[in-house]
């Protein structure tokens, strides 16, 4: 059970790393700004999933719980039981911040790309390089 779990977790982490590589390729090599934009969102989502995976933990004989108290605790002992099975909430909070700021950047980039398209008539950076007007 434990070996199988470790193997699958490694597969997930490695596929996230490969995902980061593929999205970097999209950002560098694709000439279209829209495709660069999509690759950028995939990059950010992969890194966010990766950060959440860093907060994951294992609990002996059970699955880890979410970082939410199901009910109002009646004593400090319940809080200790809660922290014994819950995952790390800090990466989730940081990723929430990252998502919000990422969204802000995407909105601005989408506005820029649409203005670029209306100005040059294309979203390809290699065609529009000469300052040709569409």
């Amino acid at each position: 059970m434990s070996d199988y779990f470790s193997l699958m977790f490694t597969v997930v982490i490695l596929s996230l790393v490969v995902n980061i590589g593929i999205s970097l390729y999209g950002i560098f090599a694709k000439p279209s700004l829209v495709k660069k934009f999509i690759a950028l969102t995939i990059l950010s989502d992969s890194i966010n999933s990766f950060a959440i995976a860093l907060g994951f933990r294992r609990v002996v004989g059970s699955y880890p719980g979410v970082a939410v108290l199901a009910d109002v605790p009646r004593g400090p002992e319940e809080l200790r039981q809660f922290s014994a099975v819950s995952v790390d909430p800090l990466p989730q909070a940081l990723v929430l911040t990252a998502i919000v700021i990422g969204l802000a950047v995407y909105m601005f980039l989408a506005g820029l790309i649409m203005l670029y398209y209306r100005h040059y008539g294309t979203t390809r950076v290699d065609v529009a390089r000469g300052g040709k007007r569409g």
Partner: protein
Amino acid sequence: MRAREVVIAFSIALTVLLLAYVIELGGLGPLAPHTLRDIARAYLEYVYNPWNVTVSSMALEAVTAIVWDYRGLDTYFETSVLFVAIVGVVTLYRGYRELRGLGGAGLSEIVKTSTRVLVPLVLVAGASIAIHGHLTPGGGFQGGSFMAVLMVLLVVVFSLDYAFERGLTSSRLLAIRSAGLVGILLTSVALIVAGAVTGASAYVFQNMAREGSDLTMPSWLLDRPLGGTLFFFNVFESLAVVSGLTLAFIVLALRREEVDQALATGEWYE
């Protein structure tokens, strides 16, 4: 061209290999450990802790407590970044006009009817995610973006003309957005103002009573925990997010006739 592609492919493969090697070496700490980091255990045990109120936020959800209480100033600036980005989008399209009667009847009657059924459901679900942010997974940003999706759906299904007619104009949305941000600001200094009136000391972003300050936000509403500032932050943040994202989408969805003026303004600067 060939050499460029080879260089890109080689360097990306190298990046992936090196990242995987660093993770394998444990450079990011142990993956899926059996024990929590100390700071995570502290957050989890202090999130609702009436036996040690000076370090507690009296909310049941640890992520919201971290986002709006323990790291509240971070989140305030983060929501300011979102605000600045929306102002940036509006500034990029400066000089646009909101025209009515450009045609555009929206999608078919079937889609419109099913969207009308969806409206109350999505609004209630989004409001519940935002208002219960201190009790269940979710919060102001999640609930707000949930409702913003509905607004995007309305603009797409019923056309932009309809949205303008029903009052979704950009000046009004920007006003709601600013009101949300002002609400967040007022909540963060509420106890300072209360302290100035009563002559007690208080901190910015103070939630429960802290060391050196006995002032406290309400921790219970009727029969359930309120989390003090967390509830107010979530409500104002959801207002700010839903109006801000809707505004940004409306600006991005403007028709050609409406942005002609904006493009002409841009050409004056060339």
